[in-house]
């Protein structure tokens, strides 16, 4: 019951996943009151207003895009993919942490995941929503997006299944569907809790509808558990497959810097890396503003930092192997590509990427750094930036000088590129603000199951 317990415990890895002293009702009360009791605070309004303004910027950018065409962006020949694809890969990557936390860690019985999995999953869904915008918007004729789907039509035309973009359509849509289902199914008991605790009638009705008649009977619980495990089982391969397929967009092509067998593992690691960075980026302020330090403890932050460190090292290995193979293969185009990355017009981006993704995160080896919330927050932000730069290097820097020197060119994003990018951040944050305002951002059910455990641990101490 020591209020300063978290500060006193140096060994964050030994810290409990739920601060001791919570009872079943206190957990329920604490989480549900954020939605039901707290009301709309000024702080929330302020943050939401900014996010919503950015979302409106996105609307403007998209409207202008649809009116004029993709020429408003900086893309050109030979750099026919620019910010849109960079952002797509970045957002998809960010989503991965949520799935990893909710599915793989569930299957691995990592109890610490419980308090972060709900908003990590929300993050996944919102990130996928942002990501999904880009492949649509970047098309020359987005209104014909359905040509990429296999649908029966009089022309007997099907998508061209050899194209990784078609695989992408399946991978991303499957991912979005499974993630949404998983998130929603997991939330049903909590929605029922909110329904039961809601004071006003509209809230009761809405939560009631969403709770789908949950009454907490044993049969319900049994089916709920089965569904969770099944969905977790479904989602698990997606953690690996989605970004693998996204990496095929590049590795199947023959562009030097894209055409590489290391891409699938290196993309998956990078995705988890950036995803955990984003979870940390979100968890730290939420934990602070909603006083959830006892639910999202230092143990969580420490574990996530470790995952980041581990995946960061895999990513670093990817960079090293890319460079090594470029020389070892004796392929002059690959060699030129690497040299151009390191010394060409975009060398500063490459070295900034190395700094952000490899050099700076090494501070996480230190436990003190992992326990320092401000530093951890900064490192997480740096990794977010670094992973964005990585995609920029892969997409733009590889394309800008490929085989035929006469066709070389340089890429410069326009204000509309930035507006669209910042706009999707607005979309993401807007959805996230709505989420924390109207839905239980931590799984009440799962946290309750932890109460007993932590209390036992606390007593043992």
């Amino acid at each position, binding site marked *: 019951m020591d209020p300063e317990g978290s500060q006193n415990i140096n060994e964050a890895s030994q810290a409990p996943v739920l601060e001791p002293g919570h009872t079943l009702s206190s957990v329920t009360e604490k989480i549900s009151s954020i939605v039901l009791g707290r009301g709309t605070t000024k702080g929330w309004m302020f943050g939401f207003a900014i996010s919503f303004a950015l979302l409106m910027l996105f609307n403007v950018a998209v409207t202008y895009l649809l009116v004029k065409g993709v020429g408003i962006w900086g893309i050109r*020949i030979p750099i026919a993919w620019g910010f849109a694809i960079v952002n797509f890969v970045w957002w998809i990557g960010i989503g991965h942490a949520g799935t990893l936390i909710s599915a793989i860690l569930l299957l691995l019985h990592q109890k610490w995941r419980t308090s972060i999995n709900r908003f990590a999953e929300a993050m996944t869904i919102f990130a996928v929503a942002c990501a999904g915008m880009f492949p649509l918007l970047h098309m020359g004729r987005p209104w014909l997006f359905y040509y990429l789907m296999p649908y029966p039509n009089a022309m007997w035309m099907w998508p061209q299944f050899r194209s990784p973009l078609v695989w992408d359509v399946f991978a991303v849509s499957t991912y979005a569907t499974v993630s949404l289902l998983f998130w929603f199914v997991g939330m049903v008991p909590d929605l029922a809790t909110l329904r039961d605790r809601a004071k006003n009638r509209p809230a009761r009705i809405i939560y009631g509808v969403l709770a789908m008649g949950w009454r907490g009977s044993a049969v319900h619980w049994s089916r709920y558990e089965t569904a969770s495990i099944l969905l977790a089982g479904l989602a698990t391969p997606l953690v690996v497959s989605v970004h693998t397929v996204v990496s095929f967009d590049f590795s199947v092509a023959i562009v030097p810097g894209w055409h590489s067998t290391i891409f699938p593992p290196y993309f998956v690691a990078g995705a988890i890396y950036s995803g955990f960075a984003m979870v940390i980026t979100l968890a730290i302020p939420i934990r602070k503003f909603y006083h959830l330090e006892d639910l999202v403890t230092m143990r969580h932050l420490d574990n996530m930092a470790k995952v980041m460190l581990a995946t960061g090292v895999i990513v670093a290995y990817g960079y090293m192997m890319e460079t090594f193979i470029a020389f070892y293969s004796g392929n002059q185009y690959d060699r030129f590509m690497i040299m151009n990355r390191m010394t060409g017009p975009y060398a500063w981006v490459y070295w900034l990427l190395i700094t952000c993704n490899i050099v700076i995160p090494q501070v996480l080896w230190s436990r003190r750094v992992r326990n320092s919330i401000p530093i951890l927050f900064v490192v997480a932000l740096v990794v977010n930036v670094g992973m964005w730069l990585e995609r920029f290097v892969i997409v733009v820097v590889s394309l800008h000088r490929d085989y035929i020197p*006469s066709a070389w060119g340089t890429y410069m994003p326009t204000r509309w590129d930035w507006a669209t990018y910042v706009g999707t951040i607005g979309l993401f944050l807007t959805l996230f603000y709505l989420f924390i305002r109207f839905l239980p951002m931590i799984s009440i059910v799962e946290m309750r199951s932890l109460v007993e455990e932590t209390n036992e641990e606390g007593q043992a101490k």
Partner: protein
Amino acid sequence: MSSNPNTPDPKIVDLAAVRAKLAQAGQNHFWQSLEELSETKEYREFLEHEFPHDTAKNPEGIDRRDVLKLAAASAALAGLSACTKLPTEKIVPYVRPPEEIIPGRPLFYATSMQLAGVATGLLVESNMGRPTKIEGNPEHPGSLGGTDVFTQASVLTLYDPDRSQTVIHEGRISDWSTFGVAMADVRGQQSPKGSGLRILTETVTSPSLTAQIRAIFTQFPEAKWHQYEQFGRDNVRAGAKLAFGKPVNPVYKFDEADVIVSLDADFLTAGAGHVRYARDFSSRRSMESPSSNPNRLYVVECMPTSTGAMADHRKPVRASEVPDFAARLASELGVAPSNGASPALQGISSEWTRAIAKDLQQHRGSSLVVAGEEQPARVHALAHAMNAALGNVGKTVYYTDPLDANPVDGIESLGDLVNDMKAGKVDVLLILGGNPVYDAPADFDFGPALLNVKLRIHSGLYYDETGELCQWHVPATHYLESWGDARAYDGTIGIIQPLIAPLYEGCHSAYEITALLGSDPGKSNHEIVRDYWAGQRPEKEKAFEDFWERSLHDGIIPGTALPAISVSARSDFAKPVRAQAPATATSSPDLEISFRADPAIFDGRFANNGWLQELPKPNTRLTWDNAAMISAATAQRLSVTTGDYVKLQLNGRETKAGIMIVPGHAENSVTLHLGYGRRRAGKVGTGPGFNANFIRTSPSPWAATGLRLEKTGKQYYFAVTQHQYIIDHQGHGSEEASDAAFHRDLVQVATLEEFRANPNFARDPNEEASRGLTLYPGFKYEGYAWGMSIDLNKCVGCNACVVACQSENNIAVVGKEQVMAGRAMHWIRVDTYFRGGLENPEMYYEPMPCMQCENAPCEVVCPVGATTHSPEGLNEMTYNRCVGTRYCSNNCPYKVRRFNFFLFSDWQTPSLYGVRNPNVTVRSRGVMEKCTYCVQRINAAKIRSEEENRAVQDGEIVTACQGACPADAIVFGNINDPNSRVAKLKAQSRNYSLLGELNTKPRTTYLARVRNPNPEIHE
């Protein structure tokens, strides 16, 4: 309506005020800058009074969107007149009789297009009465089937919505009959002598127009005929006069020449007969086997040109030093007396000169020395003398009577006119074509002088700088709308027959305008031309009908080539050669400027042609602008770099320009192309570039020293489609891109010696190794398998293919801004690579259409199957299916795909509908496009052959690029047929694929370049 010139016009008073103002401003005030002058209140008042509707300033920064908007508005009128009117007179198609037009089947008619008076014979494709595409006329000696950029793009000018459409009198719309009344007045007033009547023409080679003009002079004996054209070959005439005493016309036979020396002559892409010359020249460069004997070309030039790029030895030399080099070469050949120490020439050793002289002497009778049209008379005279001394006359060069009917020196002739105008001797000036207010030498002050003329009449395609200063402007007919005749480079006369009735009621040809002054006004130009020939020919009635039809059909009048005449060189011509021998190159780095015709818009007449404006110029790849082009070392010395916006001052005159560093340019010299900085060209042409005419004066029209260059501190941004060099601020260049091209074997090149030692030098062993390494089963090409071969040894980089492709395939013009953004739409581009230092690199051209890979990387990545493989091996684009992911472009190693980032095609301007090829889809926004090997032509030929139950014959399908190529460098055909021309070319040892090791199996392959350097020259 018509003002009586005898009564004092109140406007003259205003004019006097303007003159007073001008006089007041003093000597340093140059009127040539019209903008400047128009700022004076009096002048503005005058203009307003004189041309009431015209005081609005031209839009300054004009972008593509504005062009579209304005074009749409102005095209409303264009739309009213139908585009499909056939001429009312009987015209004769080239191939098939016109009993009926079969919808969907184009007809071809022979005609000729003149440039600076010299005609190139053409076959023009007509779709339902609309001329849409220009091809060369294989039977015309000036073409032999080839064309150039100007002829290819001319069809766009026909449909230009900015063309002048109605007769304009004093700024108001008038009509032809009113003009006819005015001309009748002129006739009445000028009778009987016509001492106040002046006719100013461009170069006239038309026999019938000449006859008409001459008839006027019999009527008005004191009238005068002045002739001025910026590129009117004044120096060729002057040189011939110097050498032979008369202005004979030299005709070259490059196919007979083993050794060629070009003294600043860009004979492959500019000047009289260049289309034919490119064909003749390249015919000596088809290296079928190691035993082939190619020609050898030496070039001494200032600005790197296409001809320079084809040289086996090239030296950059200032334009003003070319005479020195010519003198030295002549003295080595024993032609001109070497007067002691010949001046040292920067960069040219005497060994080099001597080696050339020796080479020439070893090829007596099969060598050729050519002088550039911009070089002074001396150089021409020396070239004639050298050719005579080498026994080349009658073999590689012969002389004919001049092509032009009035072989006068243009600048002199215009100078006389200006003097007369200033002296008030000119009552009526009839300007038939040309734009002297824009392009006359600056010291003539042509504009103000023109205002002294009481009645000024202008005929031109555009209501341009000259038109707006004339009381009468009569829109001229385009050559595709009017009858006429013109001489080719060798004198052969071609009949110009119209493909379409004039698009606008107001348009009339020079023939009709001249007829108004003559004895029978009102004759149509068909009658004028036909009657002239009826009078000339011995055949009468039916026989004449046959002759006429045959001439129209063939496009030429047989037997009209000018015969070779024997000329004897005057003995004294060598003397003035070195009268003054200034020690030019010793120390003083006096900056020189040389003026040249723009490779795309010529003297400015094509300024409003979007295809030409957007055409990347040879070597510089610059579009939409001219530039002050200098060498890297000079740039460094002057501490300027590409993009610096500078003032160019020459003898107190000034213009501004952006600097562009050009590898291989001569030191201490600036080249500025003419034709840009137009003030009244139209929505496309008004604005871009810098007006070189502001500082070009009559004493030194082509090269002048004493140029001062002053930085303004501002930057100018050029739209360049290919950056071969990355040049830093100190002027140091790194040749990253070009280097990479050679490392990657994109340009395969060997010397003749190396080629003979190893004929297979271009083969890539990695390519063979990678064959068969594919997951997908190969295609079986059982019927036709289309392929293309491009001979880098022949390609002269003239860009004709680029414009031909644009015309054939309805390729959009995107504008300067979009070119800068990397979105030019050309389906074929002429890649240019340099090898060697910045000072004098070797230059290589490589035309890049789609490679039509058999294992096409674009096809597998398209998610919707919009780009697919045809059974004949084409990579086909289905525009309807394309959703625009652009993945195919990323995955194309050759980057030949083009994307419609915006709605680039002009869907709004009705007059531009006419120029479109009806067999090619006009692309919409958001779809990818690319070279199709002109699939519409392939299919047309296949349908025809199937109707006739036979196979498509070799040579039956000619792609647009191939058809346009003057050098015969591009060959297309069925590679499944081992006897086809393309299959045989591909079987040559020089054949290689680009990036063959990627296993793309390109159908377009290249024949490697073989240089033929002089073994005695070691560099």
